[in-house]
Protein backbone atom coordinates (compact mmCIF):
# COMPACT_ATOMS: atom_id res chain seq x y z
CA UNK A 1 0.00 0.00 0.00
CA UNK A 2 3.03 2.25 -0.04
CA UNK A 3 2.76 5.26 -2.32
CA UNK A 4 4.59 5.05 -5.59
CA UNK A 5 7.31 7.47 -4.66
CA UNK A 6 8.95 8.08 -1.35
CA UNK A 7 7.38 11.35 -0.20
CA UNK A 8 10.69 12.38 1.27
CA UNK A 9 12.32 12.41 -2.17
CA UNK A 10 9.86 14.14 -4.48
CA UNK A 11 10.73 15.40 -7.91
CA UNK A 12 13.38 18.07 -7.72
CA UNK A 13 13.42 20.87 -10.20
CA UNK A 14 16.72 20.47 -12.03
CA UNK A 15 18.56 23.18 -13.82
CA UNK A 16 20.40 22.14 -16.93
CA UNK A 17 22.26 24.02 -19.59
CA UNK A 18 19.74 22.71 -22.09
CA UNK A 19 16.84 24.23 -20.24
CA UNK A 20 18.73 27.50 -20.05
CA UNK A 21 19.19 27.63 -23.81
CA UNK A 22 15.60 26.58 -24.35
CA UNK A 23 14.18 29.37 -22.27
CA UNK A 24 16.52 31.92 -23.76
CA UNK A 25 15.05 31.06 -27.11
CA UNK A 26 11.54 31.16 -25.74
CA UNK A 27 11.79 34.62 -24.25
CA UNK A 28 11.47 36.24 -27.64
CA UNK A 29 8.42 34.11 -28.31
CA UNK A 30 6.79 35.34 -25.13
CA UNK A 31 5.99 38.56 -26.89
CA UNK A 32 3.62 36.64 -29.09
CA UNK A 33 1.41 35.39 -26.29
CA UNK A 34 0.36 38.77 -24.96
CA UNK A 35 -2.70 40.59 -26.19
CA UNK A 36 -3.84 43.97 -27.33
CA UNK A 37 -2.49 45.74 -24.27
CA UNK A 38 1.00 44.82 -25.32
CA UNK A 39 0.64 46.55 -28.65
CA UNK A 40 -0.37 49.75 -26.85
CA UNK A 41 2.50 49.53 -24.44
CA UNK A 42 5.00 48.74 -27.18
CA UNK A 43 4.55 52.24 -28.46
CA UNK A 44 5.30 53.54 -24.95
CA UNK A 45 8.59 51.71 -25.06
CA UNK A 46 8.03 49.06 -22.39
CA UNK A 47 7.09 45.49 -23.19
CA UNK A 48 3.98 44.04 -21.57
CA UNK A 49 4.02 40.33 -20.79
CA UNK A 50 1.36 37.90 -19.61
CA UNK A 51 -1.27 37.34 -18.36
CA UNK A 52 -0.45 33.80 -19.49
CA UNK A 53 2.72 31.89 -18.69
CA UNK A 54 5.97 33.73 -19.30
CA UNK A 55 9.56 32.64 -18.74
CA UNK A 56 10.85 33.77 -15.36
CA UNK A 57 14.45 33.18 -14.33
CA UNK A 58 15.36 33.42 -10.68
CA UNK A 59 18.66 33.14 -8.84
CA UNK A 60 17.93 31.16 -5.71
CA UNK A 61 20.63 30.26 -3.20
CA UNK A 62 23.19 30.96 -5.89
CA UNK A 63 21.61 28.62 -8.43
CA UNK A 64 19.59 29.47 -11.48
CA UNK A 65 15.93 28.40 -11.52
CA UNK A 66 14.03 28.61 -14.80
CA UNK A 67 10.26 28.69 -14.64
CA UNK A 68 7.29 29.32 -16.89
CA UNK A 69 4.64 30.96 -14.75
CA UNK A 70 2.03 33.65 -14.87
CA UNK A 71 2.99 37.13 -13.65
CA UNK A 72 0.57 36.74 -10.75
CA UNK A 73 2.52 33.91 -9.10
CA UNK A 74 4.23 35.15 -5.95
CA UNK A 75 7.88 34.45 -5.26
CA UNK A 76 6.77 32.22 -2.40
CA UNK A 77 4.37 30.14 -4.48
CA UNK A 78 6.78 29.92 -7.40
CA UNK A 79 9.49 28.41 -5.24
CA UNK A 80 7.21 26.21 -3.13
CA UNK A 81 5.11 24.74 -5.95
CA UNK A 82 7.33 24.93 -9.03
CA UNK A 83 10.81 24.47 -7.60
CA UNK A 84 9.96 22.26 -4.63
CA UNK A 85 11.68 24.63 -2.23
CA UNK A 86 9.16 24.14 0.56
CA UNK A 87 11.28 25.33 3.48
CA UNK A 88 9.62 28.72 3.69
CA UNK A 89 5.92 28.47 4.43
CA UNK A 90 2.63 30.03 3.41
CA UNK A 91 0.66 30.97 6.49
CA UNK A 92 -1.18 34.27 6.18
CA UNK A 93 -0.34 35.05 2.55
CA UNK A 94 -0.91 38.74 3.26
CA UNK A 95 2.42 40.00 4.53
CA UNK A 96 1.61 39.91 8.24
CA UNK A 97 3.16 36.81 9.81
CA UNK A 98 6.67 36.37 8.40
CA UNK A 99 6.60 32.63 7.79
CA UNK A 100 7.48 33.31 4.14
CA UNK A 101 10.47 35.53 4.94
CA UNK A 102 13.28 35.24 2.43
CA UNK A 103 16.33 37.44 1.95
CA UNK A 104 16.33 39.24 -1.39
CA UNK A 105 19.34 41.38 -2.28
CA UNK A 106 20.33 41.33 1.35
CA UNK A 107 17.00 42.36 2.84
CA UNK A 108 14.38 40.34 4.65
CA UNK A 109 11.15 40.44 2.65
CA UNK A 110 7.73 38.77 2.70
CA UNK A 111 7.98 36.52 -0.33
CA UNK A 112 4.19 36.10 -0.33
CA UNK A 113 3.91 39.81 -1.10
CA UNK A 114 6.52 39.82 -3.85
CA UNK A 115 5.91 38.60 -7.39
CA UNK A 116 8.30 36.04 -8.82
CA UNK A 117 8.49 38.03 -12.06
CA UNK A 118 9.74 41.15 -10.29
CA UNK A 119 12.37 39.14 -8.42
CA UNK A 120 14.40 38.41 -11.53
CA UNK A 121 17.96 39.65 -11.45
CA UNK A 122 18.04 39.60 -7.65
CA UNK A 123 19.88 37.38 -5.21
CA UNK A 124 17.21 35.31 -3.50
CA UNK A 125 18.07 33.33 -0.39
CA UNK A 126 15.72 30.82 1.15
CA UNK A 127 16.15 28.77 4.31
CA UNK A 128 17.40 25.86 2.24
CA UNK A 129 20.44 27.88 1.25
CA UNK A 130 21.71 28.37 4.77
CA UNK A 131 22.95 24.90 5.58
CA UNK A 132 24.81 22.21 3.72
CA UNK A 133 24.14 18.67 4.85
CA UNK A 134 24.60 18.39 8.57
CA UNK A 135 26.33 21.76 8.87
CA UNK A 136 23.87 24.27 10.19
CA UNK A 137 24.20 28.03 9.88
CA UNK A 138 25.11 29.65 13.24
CA UNK A 139 21.57 31.02 13.53
CA UNK A 140 20.09 27.59 12.89
CA UNK A 141 22.41 26.01 15.45
CA UNK A 142 21.51 28.64 18.02
CA UNK A 143 17.81 27.91 17.48
CA UNK A 144 18.37 24.19 18.06
CA UNK A 145 20.51 24.77 21.13
CA UNK A 146 18.00 27.12 22.75
CA UNK A 147 14.96 25.03 21.72
CA UNK A 148 13.64 28.11 19.94
CA UNK A 149 10.98 26.18 18.09
CA UNK A 150 8.12 23.78 18.65
CA UNK A 151 5.92 22.84 15.68
CA UNK A 152 8.49 24.53 13.50
CA UNK A 153 6.14 26.07 10.94
CA UNK A 154 7.22 29.64 11.73
CA UNK A 155 10.83 28.59 12.14
CA UNK A 156 12.23 29.01 8.62
CA UNK A 157 10.77 32.52 8.53
CA UNK A 158 12.22 33.38 11.93
CA UNK A 159 15.57 31.91 10.92
CA UNK A 160 15.71 34.05 7.78
CA UNK A 161 14.61 37.17 9.66
CA UNK A 162 17.29 36.42 12.26
CA UNK A 163 19.97 35.92 9.61
CA UNK A 164 19.04 39.24 8.01
CA UNK A 165 19.17 40.86 11.45
CA UNK A 166 22.62 39.50 12.27
CA UNK A 167 24.01 40.36 8.86
CA UNK A 168 23.00 43.94 9.51
CA UNK A 169 23.77 44.07 13.26
CA UNK A 170 26.32 41.36 14.08
CA UNK A 171 26.00 41.89 17.85
CA UNK A 172 22.43 43.02 18.21
CA UNK A 173 21.07 44.49 21.39
CA UNK A 174 17.89 43.07 22.90
CA UNK A 175 15.98 46.01 21.42
CA UNK A 176 17.43 45.39 17.96
CA UNK A 177 16.57 41.70 18.22
CA UNK A 178 12.94 42.38 19.11
CA UNK A 179 12.58 45.02 16.43
CA UNK A 180 14.29 42.83 13.89
CA UNK A 181 11.91 39.94 14.58
CA UNK A 182 8.71 41.91 15.05
CA UNK A 183 7.64 40.94 11.55
CA UNK A 184 7.31 37.28 12.56
CA UNK A 185 4.63 35.48 14.55
CA UNK A 186 4.81 32.18 16.43
CA UNK A 187 1.55 30.57 17.50
CA UNK A 188 3.28 28.01 19.72
CA UNK A 189 4.68 30.94 21.68
CA UNK A 190 8.42 30.30 21.47
CA UNK A 191 9.42 33.97 21.43
CA UNK A 192 11.31 33.81 24.70
CA UNK A 193 13.66 31.19 23.33
CA UNK A 194 13.86 32.73 19.87
CA UNK A 195 15.14 35.90 21.51
CA UNK A 196 17.55 33.88 23.67
CA UNK A 197 18.81 32.08 20.57
CA UNK A 198 19.46 35.39 18.85
CA UNK A 199 21.37 36.63 21.85
CA UNK A 200 23.65 33.61 21.61
CA UNK A 201 24.40 33.68 17.88
CA UNK A 202 28.08 33.99 17.10
CA UNK A 203 29.94 33.97 13.86
CA UNK A 204 27.67 35.79 11.42
CA UNK A 205 29.51 38.36 9.35
CA UNK A 206 28.04 41.71 8.45
CA UNK A 207 26.67 41.43 4.91
Amino acid sequence: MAPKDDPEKPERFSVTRRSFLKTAGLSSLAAGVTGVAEAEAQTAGARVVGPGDVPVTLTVNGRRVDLRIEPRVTLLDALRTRADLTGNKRVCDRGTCGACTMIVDGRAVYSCSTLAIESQGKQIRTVEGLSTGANLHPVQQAFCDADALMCGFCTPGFVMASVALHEKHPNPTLEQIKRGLDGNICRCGTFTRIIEANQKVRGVARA
Partner: protein
Amino acid sequence: MKAFAYVNPTNEKDAVGALGTERGKFLPLAGGQDLLARMKDYVAQPDRLVNVKGALDATIAATPDGGLKIGAAVRIADLAEHAQVARLYPAIAKAAGEVGTPQIRNQGTVGGNINQRPRCWYFRNEEFLCYKKGGNRCFAPAGENQFHAIFGNGPTHIVHPSSVAVPAVAYGAKFRLVSPRGERIVDASEYFTMPTLQNVQSENVLAPDELFTHIILPAPGNVKTGHYEVRYKQSHDWPIAFATVVLTMNGSNIGSARVVMGAVAPVPWRAQAAEQALAGKPIDERSAAAAAEAALQGARPMSQNGYKVQVAKTAVKRAVLQAGGIRTV
Protein backbone atom coordinates in the same frame (compact mmCIF):
# COMPACT_ATOMS: atom_id res chain seq x y z
CA MET B 1 -5.80 36.91 -7.50
CA LYS B 2 -6.99 37.58 -11.00
CA ALA B 3 -4.44 37.12 -13.77
CA PHE B 4 -2.84 40.27 -15.07
CA ALA B 5 -0.37 41.47 -17.67
CA TYR B 6 2.87 42.90 -16.36
CA VAL B 7 5.22 45.61 -17.53
CA ASN B 8 8.46 46.82 -16.00
CA PRO B 9 9.34 50.24 -17.46
CA THR B 10 12.70 51.82 -16.78
CA ASN B 11 11.74 55.50 -16.89
CA GLU B 12 9.02 57.84 -15.74
CA LYS B 13 7.63 58.49 -19.22
CA ASP B 14 7.17 54.82 -20.03
CA ALA B 15 5.65 54.21 -16.62
CA VAL B 16 3.05 56.92 -17.13
CA GLY B 17 2.45 55.65 -20.62
CA ALA B 18 1.67 52.19 -19.32
CA LEU B 19 -1.18 53.44 -17.10
CA GLY B 20 -4.69 54.17 -18.31
CA THR B 21 -7.64 56.41 -17.59
CA GLU B 22 -10.04 53.84 -16.19
CA ARG B 23 -9.73 53.68 -12.40
CA GLY B 24 -8.48 50.34 -11.12
CA LYS B 25 -7.75 48.79 -14.53
CA PHE B 26 -3.98 49.43 -14.82
CA LEU B 27 -2.33 49.85 -11.44
CA PRO B 28 1.20 50.80 -10.38
CA LEU B 29 3.05 48.16 -8.40
CA ALA B 30 5.47 49.60 -5.87
CA GLY B 31 6.37 47.57 -2.74
CA GLY B 32 3.33 45.37 -3.21
CA GLN B 33 2.70 45.17 0.53
CA ASP B 34 -0.75 46.67 0.12
CA LEU B 35 -1.76 46.01 -3.49
CA LEU B 36 -1.00 42.29 -3.69
CA ALA B 37 -3.02 41.57 -0.55
CA ARG B 38 -5.98 43.49 -1.96
CA MET B 39 -5.69 41.57 -5.18
CA LYS B 40 -5.67 38.25 -3.36
CA ASP B 41 -8.95 39.27 -1.75
CA TYR B 42 -10.32 40.42 -5.13
CA VAL B 43 -10.81 43.93 -3.79
CA ALA B 44 -8.50 45.06 -6.60
CA GLN B 45 -8.71 43.28 -9.95
CA PRO B 46 -6.44 45.12 -12.35
CA ASP B 47 -5.81 43.84 -15.87
CA ARG B 48 -2.28 45.15 -15.78
CA LEU B 49 0.39 45.89 -13.18
CA VAL B 50 3.05 48.47 -13.92
CA ASN B 51 6.15 47.86 -11.81
CA VAL B 52 7.28 51.42 -11.07
CA LYS B 53 10.24 50.64 -8.81
CA GLY B 54 12.71 50.78 -11.68
CA ALA B 55 11.05 53.79 -13.31
CA LEU B 56 10.70 56.24 -10.45
CA ASP B 57 13.36 58.10 -8.53
CA ALA B 58 14.79 56.05 -5.70
CA THR B 59 17.05 58.73 -4.31
CA ILE B 60 16.90 61.36 -1.59
CA ALA B 61 18.58 64.59 -2.70
CA ALA B 62 19.09 68.06 -1.30
CA THR B 63 17.18 70.87 -2.99
CA PRO B 64 18.71 74.28 -3.66
CA ASP B 65 16.60 75.95 -0.95
CA GLY B 66 17.86 73.68 1.81
CA GLY B 67 15.10 71.13 1.66
CA LEU B 68 14.96 67.55 0.47
CA LYS B 69 13.43 65.79 -2.50
CA ILE B 70 12.48 62.20 -1.77
CA GLY B 71 11.81 59.85 -4.68
CA ALA B 72 8.67 57.71 -4.61
CA ALA B 73 10.70 54.54 -5.10
CA VAL B 74 12.75 55.10 -1.95
CA ARG B 75 12.18 52.18 0.41
CA ILE B 76 10.64 53.02 3.77
CA ALA B 77 13.59 51.34 5.56
CA ASP B 78 16.01 53.64 3.75
CA LEU B 79 13.89 56.70 4.50
CA ALA B 80 13.89 55.78 8.19
CA GLU B 81 17.67 55.45 8.33
CA HIS B 82 18.64 58.40 6.14
CA ALA B 83 20.88 60.74 8.11
CA GLN B 84 19.67 63.92 6.44
CA VAL B 85 16.02 63.02 6.88
CA ALA B 86 16.59 62.21 10.54
CA ARG B 87 18.41 65.51 11.05
CA LEU B 88 16.09 67.84 9.13
CA TYR B 89 12.71 66.10 9.42
CA PRO B 90 12.93 63.80 12.44
CA ALA B 91 9.20 63.13 12.47
CA ILE B 92 9.38 61.65 8.98
CA ALA B 93 12.27 59.39 9.94
CA LYS B 94 10.43 58.37 13.09
CA ALA B 95 7.17 57.70 11.31
CA ALA B 96 8.94 55.67 8.65
CA GLY B 97 10.74 53.67 11.31
CA GLU B 98 7.48 52.68 12.95
CA VAL B 99 5.78 51.48 9.78
CA GLY B 100 4.76 47.83 9.95
CA THR B 101 7.63 45.43 10.28
CA PRO B 102 11.20 45.18 8.98
CA GLN B 103 10.05 43.16 5.99
CA ILE B 104 7.35 45.71 5.12
CA ARG B 105 9.83 48.56 5.49
CA ASN B 106 12.31 46.75 3.25
CA GLN B 107 9.78 46.34 0.45
CA GLY B 108 7.45 49.25 0.94
CA THR B 109 8.13 52.52 -0.84
CA VAL B 110 7.47 56.16 -0.10
CA GLY B 111 5.00 56.38 -2.96
CA GLY B 112 3.25 53.22 -1.82
CA ASN B 113 3.02 54.40 1.76
CA ILE B 114 1.45 57.72 0.79
CA ASN B 115 -0.97 56.18 -1.69
CA GLN B 116 -1.93 52.92 0.05
CA ARG B 117 -5.62 52.16 0.37
CA PRO B 118 -7.42 52.08 3.73
CA ARG B 119 -7.21 49.16 6.15
CA CYS B 120 -10.94 49.29 6.81
CA TRP B 121 -12.12 45.71 7.17
CA TYR B 122 -15.29 46.35 5.25
CA PHE B 123 -13.25 47.69 2.36
CA ARG B 124 -10.86 44.76 2.45
CA ASN B 125 -13.47 41.99 2.63
CA GLU B 126 -15.10 41.28 -0.73
CA GLU B 127 -18.42 40.34 0.89
CA PHE B 128 -19.09 43.94 1.91
CA LEU B 129 -19.99 45.97 -1.19
CA CYS B 130 -19.29 49.41 0.23
CA TYR B 131 -19.06 52.86 -1.32
CA LYS B 132 -15.37 52.48 -2.03
CA LYS B 133 -16.05 49.44 -4.19
CA GLY B 134 -18.93 50.96 -6.11
CA GLY B 135 -21.61 50.02 -3.62
CA ASN B 136 -24.12 52.33 -2.00
CA ARG B 137 -23.36 52.21 1.71
CA CYS B 138 -20.73 52.32 4.39
CA PHE B 139 -20.94 49.43 6.85
CA ALA B 140 -19.03 51.11 9.65
CA PRO B 141 -21.73 53.23 11.30
CA ALA B 142 -23.99 50.27 12.08
CA GLY B 143 -21.17 47.79 12.50
CA GLU B 144 -17.71 47.32 13.99
CA ASN B 145 -16.20 50.79 13.96
CA GLN B 146 -13.63 50.67 16.76
CA PHE B 147 -10.85 51.48 14.27
CA HIS B 148 -12.75 54.01 12.19
CA ALA B 149 -12.68 57.80 12.04
CA ILE B 150 -13.59 60.24 14.80
CA PHE B 151 -13.59 63.21 12.46
CA GLY B 152 -15.75 63.70 9.41
CA ASN B 153 -19.31 62.97 8.63
CA GLY B 154 -19.18 60.28 5.97
CA PRO B 155 -20.10 59.04 3.50
CA THR B 156 -17.14 56.85 4.42
CA HIS B 157 -15.44 56.65 7.79
CA ILE B 158 -12.04 55.24 7.03
CA VAL B 159 -8.91 56.55 8.66
CA HIS B 160 -6.08 57.37 6.32
CA PRO B 161 -3.51 54.61 6.77
CA SER B 162 -0.28 56.41 5.88
CA SER B 163 2.23 57.11 8.64
CA VAL B 164 4.51 59.22 6.46
CA ALA B 165 1.66 61.43 5.18
CA VAL B 166 1.09 63.00 8.59
CA PRO B 167 4.58 64.48 9.13
CA ALA B 168 4.69 65.31 5.41
CA VAL B 169 1.66 67.56 5.93
CA ALA B 170 3.12 68.91 9.17
CA TYR B 171 6.36 69.92 7.48
CA GLY B 172 4.48 71.61 4.66
CA ALA B 173 5.57 69.16 1.98
CA LYS B 174 4.55 69.24 -1.65
CA PHE B 175 4.02 66.22 -3.85
CA ARG B 176 5.10 65.97 -7.48
CA LEU B 177 2.69 64.13 -9.77
CA VAL B 178 3.20 63.24 -13.42
CA SER B 179 0.64 62.30 -16.07
CA PRO B 180 0.26 62.47 -19.87
CA ARG B 181 -0.84 66.05 -19.22
CA GLY B 182 2.50 66.90 -17.65
CA GLU B 183 3.73 67.54 -14.18
CA ARG B 184 1.88 69.15 -11.29
CA ILE B 185 2.94 70.03 -7.76
CA VAL B 186 0.30 69.69 -5.09
CA ASP B 187 0.50 70.70 -1.44
CA ALA B 188 0.45 67.63 0.76
CA SER B 189 -2.36 69.22 2.75
CA GLU B 190 -4.45 69.36 -0.42
CA TYR B 191 -3.52 65.98 -1.80
CA PHE B 192 -5.73 63.94 0.47
CA THR B 193 -9.48 64.31 0.07
CA MET B 194 -12.33 64.18 2.55
CA PRO B 195 -14.92 61.80 1.13
CA THR B 196 -17.91 62.85 -0.93
CA LEU B 197 -20.27 60.65 -2.90
CA GLN B 198 -18.39 61.67 -6.04
CA ASN B 199 -14.80 61.03 -4.95
CA VAL B 200 -15.40 58.18 -2.53
CA GLN B 201 -13.54 55.54 -4.53
CA SER B 202 -10.25 57.30 -3.93
CA GLU B 203 -8.53 58.91 -0.96
CA ASN B 204 -6.54 61.55 -2.87
CA VAL B 205 -6.43 63.64 -6.04
CA LEU B 206 -4.19 61.27 -8.00
CA ALA B 207 -5.74 60.40 -11.35
CA PRO B 208 -5.70 56.81 -12.65
CA ASP B 209 -3.15 57.76 -15.32
CA GLU B 210 -1.04 59.79 -12.93
CA LEU B 211 2.01 58.77 -10.94
CA PHE B 212 3.22 60.08 -7.61
CA THR B 213 6.94 60.70 -8.07
CA HIS B 214 8.36 62.82 -5.21
CA ILE B 215 7.88 64.31 -1.78
CA ILE B 216 9.42 67.79 -1.86
CA LEU B 217 10.18 69.21 1.56
CA PRO B 218 10.94 72.84 2.18
CA ALA B 219 13.85 73.80 4.40
CA PRO B 220 12.61 73.04 7.90
CA GLY B 221 13.74 76.26 9.52
CA ASN B 222 14.33 76.57 13.22
CA VAL B 223 11.69 74.16 14.46
CA LYS B 224 11.15 71.79 17.32
CA THR B 225 9.44 68.55 16.32
CA GLY B 226 7.51 65.92 18.15
CA HIS B 227 6.01 62.71 16.81
CA TYR B 228 4.07 60.31 19.02
CA GLU B 229 2.30 57.13 17.98
CA VAL B 230 0.02 55.03 20.18
CA ARG B 231 -0.25 51.37 19.27
CA TYR B 232 -1.83 48.53 21.15
CA LYS B 233 0.58 45.78 20.17
CA GLN B 234 4.22 46.77 20.17
CA SER B 235 5.29 44.19 17.61
CA HIS B 236 3.19 44.82 14.52
CA ASP B 237 0.13 46.96 14.65
CA TRP B 238 -1.56 49.95 13.10
CA PRO B 239 -1.56 53.03 15.35
CA ILE B 240 -4.75 53.85 17.23
CA ALA B 241 -3.86 57.52 16.91
CA PHE B 242 -0.71 59.53 16.35
CA ALA B 243 0.39 63.11 15.98
CA THR B 244 3.17 65.19 14.50
CA VAL B 245 3.82 68.58 15.95
CA VAL B 246 6.18 71.06 14.28
CA LEU B 247 6.81 74.19 16.32
CA THR B 248 8.44 77.26 14.89
CA MET B 249 9.92 78.93 17.94
CA ASN B 250 9.96 82.62 18.81
CA GLY B 251 12.52 82.79 21.57
CA SER B 252 11.40 80.40 24.24
CA ASN B 253 7.78 80.57 23.21
CA ILE B 254 6.06 78.93 20.30
CA GLY B 255 5.75 81.30 17.36
CA SER B 256 3.53 79.14 15.23
CA ALA B 257 2.61 75.47 15.24
CA ARG B 258 1.51 72.80 12.88
CA VAL B 259 -0.38 69.98 14.54
CA VAL B 260 -1.42 67.04 12.40
CA MET B 261 -3.07 63.85 13.61
CA GLY B 262 -3.12 60.43 12.03
CA ALA B 263 -5.48 57.46 12.23
CA VAL B 264 -8.37 59.69 13.26
CA ALA B 265 -9.82 60.87 9.95
CA PRO B 266 -10.00 60.02 6.24
CA VAL B 267 -7.11 62.43 5.72
CA PRO B 268 -4.14 63.53 7.82
CA TRP B 269 -6.04 65.83 10.16
CA ARG B 270 -4.74 69.36 10.65
CA ALA B 271 -5.84 70.53 14.09
CA GLN B 272 -5.97 74.27 13.58
CA ALA B 273 -7.56 74.94 16.94
CA ALA B 274 -4.61 73.20 18.58
CA GLU B 275 -2.21 75.27 16.49
CA GLN B 276 -3.91 78.45 17.66
CA ALA B 277 -3.86 77.28 21.26
CA LEU B 278 -0.11 76.79 21.08
CA ALA B 279 0.82 80.07 19.40
CA GLY B 280 2.61 82.37 21.80
CA LYS B 281 2.81 79.80 24.58
CA PRO B 282 5.83 78.14 26.14
CA ILE B 283 6.15 74.39 25.73
CA ASP B 284 4.92 72.94 29.00
CA GLU B 285 2.35 70.55 30.45
CA ARG B 286 -0.34 73.20 30.44
CA SER B 287 0.02 74.31 26.86
CA ALA B 288 0.38 70.71 25.73
CA ALA B 289 -2.81 69.71 27.52
CA ALA B 290 -4.67 72.73 26.16
CA ALA B 291 -3.51 71.95 22.64
CA ALA B 292 -4.66 68.37 23.08
CA GLU B 293 -8.14 69.43 24.15
CA ALA B 294 -8.38 71.89 21.29
CA ALA B 295 -7.17 69.31 18.79
CA LEU B 296 -10.14 67.08 19.44
CA GLN B 297 -12.73 69.81 19.08
CA GLY B 298 -15.27 68.78 16.54
CA ALA B 299 -14.59 65.09 16.99
CA ARG B 300 -17.63 62.96 16.15
CA PRO B 301 -16.90 59.52 17.59
CA MET B 302 -18.88 56.56 16.37
CA SER B 303 -20.51 53.91 18.52
CA GLN B 304 -17.34 51.89 19.20
CA ASN B 305 -14.49 54.36 18.85
CA GLY B 306 -14.99 57.01 21.49
CA TYR B 307 -11.79 55.84 23.15
CA LYS B 308 -9.87 57.22 20.17
CA VAL B 309 -10.65 60.72 21.35
CA GLN B 310 -8.71 60.19 24.58
CA VAL B 311 -5.91 58.36 22.79
CA ALA B 312 -5.58 61.11 20.17
CA LYS B 313 -5.50 63.77 22.89
CA THR B 314 -2.67 61.87 24.55
CA ALA B 315 -0.80 61.61 21.26
CA VAL B 316 -1.02 65.36 20.67
CA LYS B 317 -0.08 66.22 24.24
CA ARG B 318 2.92 63.92 24.27
CA ALA B 319 4.07 65.06 20.83
CA VAL B 320 4.09 68.66 22.06
CA LEU B 321 6.03 67.75 25.18
CA GLN B 322 8.44 65.70 23.12
CA ALA B 323 9.06 68.70 20.89
CA GLY B 324 10.03 70.59 24.01
CA GLY B 325 12.35 67.84 25.15
CA ILE B 326 10.10 67.23 28.18
CA ARG B 327 9.85 63.64 29.30
CA THR B 328 6.39 62.26 28.60
CA VAL B 329 6.13 58.87 30.28
